[in-house]
């Protein structure tokens, strides 16, 4: 690999662009300069920290610590899914309905990628495990957010239509199926767009990073293709689990609509 290391001085030079934006904000009265500064500072500190953590993690190559790191990532993502819901299931289900399928599909698909595709030695090498789990988790997370938001919102809006069907003797699956389908579709759209645009409209970030770091473009592309397939698998599984789980919790075994189990987020 022929990577070109960046110096901190060069980074400082690049940061002038953000300072320039800050000055523009001040001049135009946008009132964004403080937030720009804060966001920029946060970004730098967060990334430097994660760089140090990853470096330490890669050095130890401990499977336990790697697993722990993945768990922390899943927990943060679960909280993000929870925070993104306009309406959510009450109690522990509000978290669980997103977190459980997200964790399950991320772990399964990451293991699939590590064991049968990448084949690193050892297979749990954090250099592969962490980035792979992270990128899969990100995609699963947005899919599940969209799916859950779509379903819970639609079910709340369509209460009369659902209850009319139930009252006439429809099962809960029949009454909810069109809304579940719609939620699954909306969860899938971003990934489909991403796949269609890849390489033409956008160069995926991971691939670009590898190329910048000196990897042969064809090798980088092969990795990107693998990632896309893994994302498709992970997102599909996760969203399916979340939407079916939420639908089950939005109804009960007596085929009743249970909107009493939904709470408005603030």
């Amino acid at each position, binding site marked *: 690999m022929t990577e070109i290391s960046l110096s901190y001085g060069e980074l400082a030079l690049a940061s002038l662009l953000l300072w320039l934006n800050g000055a523009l904000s001040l001049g135009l009265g946008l009132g964004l300069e403080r937030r720009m500064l804060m966001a920029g500072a946060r970004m730098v500190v967060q990334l430097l920290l994660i760089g140090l953590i990853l470096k330490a993690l890669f050095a130890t190559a401990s499977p336990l610590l790697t697993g722990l790191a993945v768990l922390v990532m899943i927990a943060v993502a679960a909280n993000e899914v929870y925070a993104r819901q306009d309406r959510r299931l009450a109690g522990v289900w509000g978290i669980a309905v997103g977190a459980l399928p997200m964790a399950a599909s991320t772990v399964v698909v990451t293991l699939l990628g590590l064991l049968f595709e990448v084949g690193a030695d050892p297979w749990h090498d954090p250099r592969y495990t962490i980035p792979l789990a992270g990128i899969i988790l990100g995609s699963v997370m947005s899919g599940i957010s969209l799916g859950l938001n779509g379903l819970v919102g639609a079910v709340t809006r*369509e*209460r*009369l*239509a*659902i*209850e*009319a*069907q*139930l*009252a*006439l*003797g*429809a*099962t809960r699956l029949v*009454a909810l199926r*069109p809304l579940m389908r719609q939620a699954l579709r909306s969860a899938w759209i971003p990934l489909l767009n991403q796949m269609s645009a890849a390489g033409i409209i956008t160069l995926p970030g991971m691939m670009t990073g590898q190329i910048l770091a000196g990897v042969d473009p064809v090798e980088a592309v092969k990795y990107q293709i693998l990632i896309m397939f893994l994302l498709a698998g992970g997102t599909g599984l996760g969203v399916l689990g979340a939407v079916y789980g939420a639908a089950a919790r939005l109804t*009960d075994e*007596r*085929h*009743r*609509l249970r909107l009493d189990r939904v709470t408005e987020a603030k």
Partner: protein
Amino acid sequence: MLVIEGLRRLGFGPFALEVASGECIGIAGPSGAGKSVFLRMIADLDPHDGSVRLDEARCEAMPAPAWRRQVTYLAAESGWWADRVGEHFVDPARARALLPAVGMAADALDWPVTRLSTGERQRLALIRALIQEPRVLLLDEPTSALDPETTAAVEALLGQALARGAGIVLVSHDLAQAARLATRRFRMANGNLQAAQP
């Protein structure tokens, strides 16, 4: 035929009531008194304590969809889940035959749902339930959006259902309607059912 015992939920009830075949029970009372809650519990659409049975068959002993096809609740506000009116009927041919009886155009089943007025929705929702021939109909303000003439037509249709042996529990603000249809009348107040003075 329908026997209700100790039915209660969230401060409403306990309710006890028997509805015989061919009988119409009228229930009046102020908003929020628990009339709709009562009907919804009978149809098992809300969690509740107590028991409801149809002849010897207990509600919880059969799948809820099977129960609701026999004990059908018609909400005050109707719900629609497809684009075309006709898609909402298990037997569109039978529904079409009933349309003139409630003063509606025979081609109404081909309309988009968005074209329907509130009164038209109300009548179509009733027909939608009637053609499944439930043994008990739980009606929540079934004629609130109808003019007197159409109301009379709907009442005639309900009379036919009673004549074939169905039971009806009718929640209505319209005391005259209750007087015309109901064999027994009750008043719901603060979550309690009291026999009304005849």
